[in-house]
């Protein structure tokens, strides 16, 4: 085809040269016949001509063949007064260089207004476009991280934190990996244990999930906030697939390398891997895996591994870098969650300690009161003992003097009642003596054994030795050992008094609803048990009017120590006395 140049008088090239030769924008002029009349240096460089005048005289198709931007098609329309523009057009120039161009075309009019040709501008925006793309990617990454950070800040629960993290890794609106696996390191950082995994199990399931998510058109934030999405069954199955799997962080695997070098790794294929690394790839059924360490305060907290098992999309280094940034955020969230857990734990411990302290203070006050009462009763008892000695002593003397018979009966009554009063005094004095001992931690099982030994000596082996079933663990109570021993002894003695010969006493200790429980049970014939139960109800029942003084005092001792007592039936229906005392868990001073 032969192109005809229009007469130079129609287009003032000199005018164009004077205005556009040094412009950084590429300028060109095509006459009505489609022949290039003018090309400035910038346009020549963009299209790939060695010099500007090389293009002059060439047909428009020469440019079009390079930039392929529909300019030829629109040529006639421009000559008819329309404009043309093509933005960010991607092409390869005459020298084979990739370029992104903005191309504009408009009619070139003569001073008469007649259209003499097409005036075009070509601008190379390759660098600008690349920077724009980089910027958009950075904004997207920041947006992802921001949304994940926001979701993470909504919870301090470690399980929730981990689920949010992996959802962010796998969500299409997030990092877009197909599957993600999270391993948490142990305290010493020697190994990591499979904790959680997110992703579909197979392509079919992936299709269903992704299609559903696509139709929902949720933002990443909405997706992360959706509890049910994080809890879907495929995630559960994938998690169970790695749950409990321990991976060493000190061997030659890529997990260890990532942990050691504190950087992400992109693993392609299995050929160049160590056998341990190959085993990991095989177990995860993966050909291309991104592995990044989670590091907090210089300490390895875990590993995130992610792949595109379903789509087979190759993982690129920038994705690994983004995953690493993500892992760094994860470290902060994990640290924060653990700190929160520690805080909760310490708060609970403090609350428990405060409670124990309050209970201890109350108990100390009770025991102190008991001590004061002990001193008082001791002094009263001693004051009473002398008059009783005198009354009873003279009655004995009169009786032995052989007075008249009518007085003998009265004297015997005085002697008997004096002895009874002296017995009461004996109990009271035992109690007050016990009150003077300091409070301390007491091994309750030992106390029961010692008291049982005292019982044997007091009863001079008139009864069979009690059968003992003591708790295997140490049972500690806080209090006055003498007072408590006195109280236990009174219960045992009272029980012995009411026991028939056919009965066998059974003693047991244990923990019941946070209290130390001591039981005195009776075994024997049905008749003997019924008899024991009847008398026990009188002695240990609620009606204090029928209780022995010793039991009242012993009961008060137990109450002062925060305990109580009563009658109950065993699982076998046998009657038994129970005594309960608060369990001492340490932390108090004697």
């Amino acid at each position: 085809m032969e192109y005809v140049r229009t007469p130079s008088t129609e287009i003032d090239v000199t005018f164009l040269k004077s205005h556009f030769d040094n412009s950084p924008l590429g300028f060109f002029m095509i006459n009505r016949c489609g022949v290039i009349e003018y090309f400035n240096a910038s346009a020549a460089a963009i299209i790939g001509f060695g010099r500007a005048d090389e293009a002059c005289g060439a047909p428009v198709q020469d440019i079009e063949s390079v930039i392929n931007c529909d300019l030829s098609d629109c040529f006639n329309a421009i000559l008819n007064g329309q404009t043309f523009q093509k933005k960010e057009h991607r092409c390869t120039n005459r020298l084979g260089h990739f370029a992104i161009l903005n191309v504009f075309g408009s009619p070139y009019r003569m001073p008469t207004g007649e259209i003499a040709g097409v005036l075009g501008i070509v601008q190379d925006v390759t660098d600008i476009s690349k920077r724009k793309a980089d910027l958009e990617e950075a904004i997207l990454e920041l947006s992802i991280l921001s949304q994940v950070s926001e979701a993470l800040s909504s919870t301090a629960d470690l399980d929730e934190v981990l689920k949010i993290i992996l959802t962010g890794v796998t969500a299409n609106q997030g990092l877009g990996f197909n599957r993600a696996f999270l391993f948490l390191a142990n305290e010493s950082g020697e190994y990591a244990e499979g904790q959680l995994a997110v992703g579909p199990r197979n392509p079919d399931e992936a299709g269903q999930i992704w299609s559903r998510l696509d139709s929902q058109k949720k933002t990443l934030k909405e997706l992360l906030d959706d509890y049910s999405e994080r809890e879907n069954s495929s995630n559960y199955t994938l998690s169970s697939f790695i749950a409990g799997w321990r991976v060493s962080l000190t061997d030659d695997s890529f997990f260890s390398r990532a942990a050691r070098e504190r950087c992400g790794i992109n693993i392609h294929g299995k050929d160049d891997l160590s056998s341990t690394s190959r085993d990991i790839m095989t177990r995860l059924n993966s050909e291309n895996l991104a592995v990044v360490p989670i590091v907090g305060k210089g300490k390895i907290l875990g590993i995130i591994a992610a792949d595109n098992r379903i789509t087979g999309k190759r993982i690129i280094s920038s994705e690994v870098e983004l995953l690493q940034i993500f892992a760094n955020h994860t470290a902060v969230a994990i640290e924060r969650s653990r700190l929160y857990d520690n805080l909760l734990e310490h708060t609970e411990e403090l609350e428990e300690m405060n409670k124990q302290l309050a209970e201890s203070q109350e108990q100390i006050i009770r025991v102190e009161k008991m001590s004061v009462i002990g001193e008082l009763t001791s002094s009263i008892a001693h004051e009473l003992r002398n008059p009783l000695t005198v009354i009873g002593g003279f009655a004995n003397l009169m009786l032995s003097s052989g007075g008249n018979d009518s007085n003998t009966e009265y004297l015997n009554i005085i002697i008997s009642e004096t002895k009874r009063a002296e017995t009461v005094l004996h109990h009271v004095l035992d109690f007050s003596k016990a009150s003077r001992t300091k409070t301390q931690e007491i091994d309750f099982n030992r106390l029961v054994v010692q008291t049982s030994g005292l019982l044997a000596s007091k009863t001079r082996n008139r009864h069979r030795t009690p059968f003992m079933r003591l708790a295997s663990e140490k049972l500690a109570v806080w209090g006055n050992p003498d007072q408590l021993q006195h109280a236990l002894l009174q219960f045992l003695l009272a029980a012995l008094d009411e026991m028939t010969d056919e009965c066998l006493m059974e003693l047991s200790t244990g923990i019941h609803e946070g209290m130390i429980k001591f039981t005195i049970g009776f075994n024997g014939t049905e008749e003997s048990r019924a008899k024991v139960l009847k008398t026990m109800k009188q002695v240990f029942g609620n009606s204090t009017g029928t209780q022995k003084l010793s039991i009242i005092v012993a009961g008060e001792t137990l109450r002062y120590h925060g305990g109580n007592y009563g009658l109950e039936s065993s699982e076998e229906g046998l009657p038994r006395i129970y005594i309960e005392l608060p369990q001492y868990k340490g932390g108090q001073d004697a």
Partner: protein
Amino acid sequence: MHRLLIVDDEDHIRKLYKDYLSREGYEVVTAASADEALKIAAEIGLDLVVLDIELEETTGLEVLKKIKEQYPALPVILNSAYSTYKSDFHTWVADAYVVKSSDIVPLKEKIKELVKV
């Protein structure tokens, strides 16, 4: 006849023991205070002392100490309403410890035992 000294600040106790033990065949002298007891012990020969611990101006333990210093062979029975003194090692120098009771038989038997020795 054996001579006993009863030391107690309570009149009725002194009277009870004197009447009771006299009828048992002992010669009984009594003292209401530590000074009086020590004076009697210095003036007349005694075979045994029954000594209360809680006296008005001093304790029987002071008297016990002085008696044992001056008359080491003289048996002393501590006789108190308090059983707690048994654990006080100062009382261990006494020959016996009998808690006061309307039943005087244990005291009588202890006296009989010590006087024989």
